[in-house]
């Protein structure tokens, strides 16, 4: 069976193994022992609450208990941009109008901003190819929302997720070719690599500081602003179902959208149910449901068929073991899929 749980120091080696399979495009998961080792250390300290809330980085792994292997990883950074600047372009509007000439021109503009500084960020989602079946991907992504719902006080009101931007068949980014290249004079892959090793803010220093009119960019660069990479479309849809929206912030390199949500408006926060674990078999109308324990330091979550609305949730003995729970312990549940009668 699969369980999603807080990462531990023992996971560093398998995590590096997994990072080898990630490939380019995922900047926060590179197979670098120093980098990943340090990140896991921070994550463990985060769950143990031995570092201040804004420095925390909650990493979760999906483990296959049948063989002890890691199937996937995901994370929530408590706050971005507090150590080094976090840059985005904000799409703005400027109207140029002359009554005398009867000209009214509405221009989109790109403003270099640090507006999202301090937001909590969903990041580093990766599922091993052999586990990309059934609801695994959906569950891994949504597990973070249930964590946030359980521990709302640990997060800022704003949650963001950066989505990989559009790339052409040959892997080039039309937005980067139309804009960034003129200022960095290096290939996108190179920039991407620097971003991964934490040099994004250095690169941002080379970007034009003044707002840019989108109309100056070539058409193919204009048309991909706010568009995700083809392979990222499903991920974007998932996050949008959970209450995240594109609100006009994009990545400065590939113009991929930043999805934003307010913690209080997330489906998981509104619809998840604090309840009590019980040992038994589910009865009545059941849904595929995320069930987590309520322990920060030993956070664990399973996906199971469970009945909604009761004061207790019936779980098998094996499931209780996976959750490190006993009957009578508090748990939190969230249906995997959006219920049609609540928010469609």
């Amino acid at each position, binding site marked *: 069976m699969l369980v999603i749980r807080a990462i531990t120091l023992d996971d560093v080696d398998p995590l590096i193994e997994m990072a080898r399979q990630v490939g380019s495009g995922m900047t926060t998961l590179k197979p670098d022992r120093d980098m990943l080792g340090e990140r896991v250390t921070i994550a463990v300290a985060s769950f143990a609450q031995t570092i201040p809330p804004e420095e925390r980085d909650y990493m979760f792994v999906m483990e296959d208990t049948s063989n002890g292997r890691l199937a996937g990883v995901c994370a929530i950074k408590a706050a971005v941009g507090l150590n080094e600047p976090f840059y985005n372009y904000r799409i703005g509007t400027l109207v*140029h*109008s*002359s009554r*005398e*000439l009867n*000209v009214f*021109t509405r*221009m989109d*503009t790109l403003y270099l901003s640090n507006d999202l500084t301090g937001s909590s960020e969903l990041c580093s989602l990766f599922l091993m190819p052999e586990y990309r079946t059934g609801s695994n991907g959906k569950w891994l992504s949504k597990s973070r929302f249930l964590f946030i719902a359980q521990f709302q006080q640990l997060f800022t009101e704003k949650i963001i997720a950066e989505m990989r931007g559009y790339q052409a068949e040959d892997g080039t980014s039309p937005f980067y070719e*139309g*804009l960034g290249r*003129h*200022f*960095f*004079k*290096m290939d996108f892959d190179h920039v991407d690599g*620097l971003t991964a090793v934490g*040099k994004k803010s*250095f*690169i941002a*220093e*080379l970007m*034009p500081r*003044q*707002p*840019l*009119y989108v*109309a*100056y*960019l070539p058409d193919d660069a204009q048309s991909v602003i706010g568009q995700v990479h083809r392979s990222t479309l499903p991920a974007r849809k998932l996050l949008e179902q959970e209450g995240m929206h594109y609100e006009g912030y994009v990545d400065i390199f590939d113009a991929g959208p930043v999805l934003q949500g307010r913690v209080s408006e997330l489906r998981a926060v509104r619809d998840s149910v604090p309840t009590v674990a019980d040992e038994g078999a589910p009865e009545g109308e059941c849904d595929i449901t995320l069930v987590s324990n309520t322990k920060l330091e030993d956070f664990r979550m399973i996906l199971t068929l469970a009945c909604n609305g009761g004061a207790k949730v019936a779980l098998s003995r094996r499931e209780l073991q996976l959750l490190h729970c006993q009957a009578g312990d508090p748990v939190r549940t969230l249906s995997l899929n959006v219920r049609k009668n609540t928010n469609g």
Partner: protein
Amino acid sequence: MYVVRPVEPADVGALEALLAASTPGVHTLPRTREKISALVERSSASFAAHVDIPSEETYLFVLEDLEQGEIVGTAAIHASAGSNGTYFAFRNDVIQQVSRDLNISHSVHALTLCSELTAYSQLSGFTIRDREKAGKEAALLSRGRLLYAVLAPHRFGDRFFVPLAGVTDDKGQSPFWDALGRKFFKMDFLDAERVIGGARNRTLIVELMPHYPVYVPLLPGPAQEAMGQIHPSGELAFNLLTEEGFEADEYVDIFDGGPILQAHRNALRSFCGSMVRRVATQDQPPGAPAQLDTMVNYAVASSERNFRAVVVACTPAESGTTLCLPSWTRKALQVAPGDNVICVRI
């Protein structure tokens, strides 16, 4: 033999004929009789005005062919470019991008809408018939107005600039405009020039043109190539002005990207190289044929109140106190021996 002098009401008809034949697309001088008359009136009033601070005055000069009795050229100066508004131009800025950590350093070229030319005096309206065949008289025409400024510095700013028409194709399309202004004005280059009357000091420029720097690398190639390039019709003026001491490269026109030459007056040869000399007749000292070899061309101008300028070959005047002028010159300048003139080598 040519003379540069202030325009007179009697010149209107001749101006109309001259300007009708000039290059289209250059909007600095009007073409209709009514507007030409108004300009001539304004110029006459400007020459007659008592000026404390340079303001709305426009001084229009004509080049007259004395032998034919014809008007063959025009040149003008506006005392203050932005007298009834703000004069807008793009300034060429270079932004240094340095990242020590990444070991990257390069410069990015940007155009910034600026208004600092507002208080400058503006040269404009340089037109000459048979431009290809023009000789020293073209230099006289271009420089004559500056000699007037030397004689009457209080009428002008400390700095001067000259916008020159930028590159357009045979259909009147400007690549620079198409990449920039068109996006904001939503109209063709010539239509835009027509509605704005060739002006660069109208409020609608603030309303429509970009306030933020235009990063040049983002402009399409043809627009980048057109920046600072002159229309072929402006080549003569460009050469004369750069010889005079004007510098290109710092500013370009907001519409067609043509160069705007500019200089502090101290950098201009008319200002720093002109000398005041007493008029003498050419017979003193007695001219020997050998001296013809040493004769040099001077632009000579009379006075602020009765301004005339000619170009004439004289014996070098640098070391003396007098300038020997032949009688036709004295007549054209309306000066007599003993009067003071200013002169500068051409």
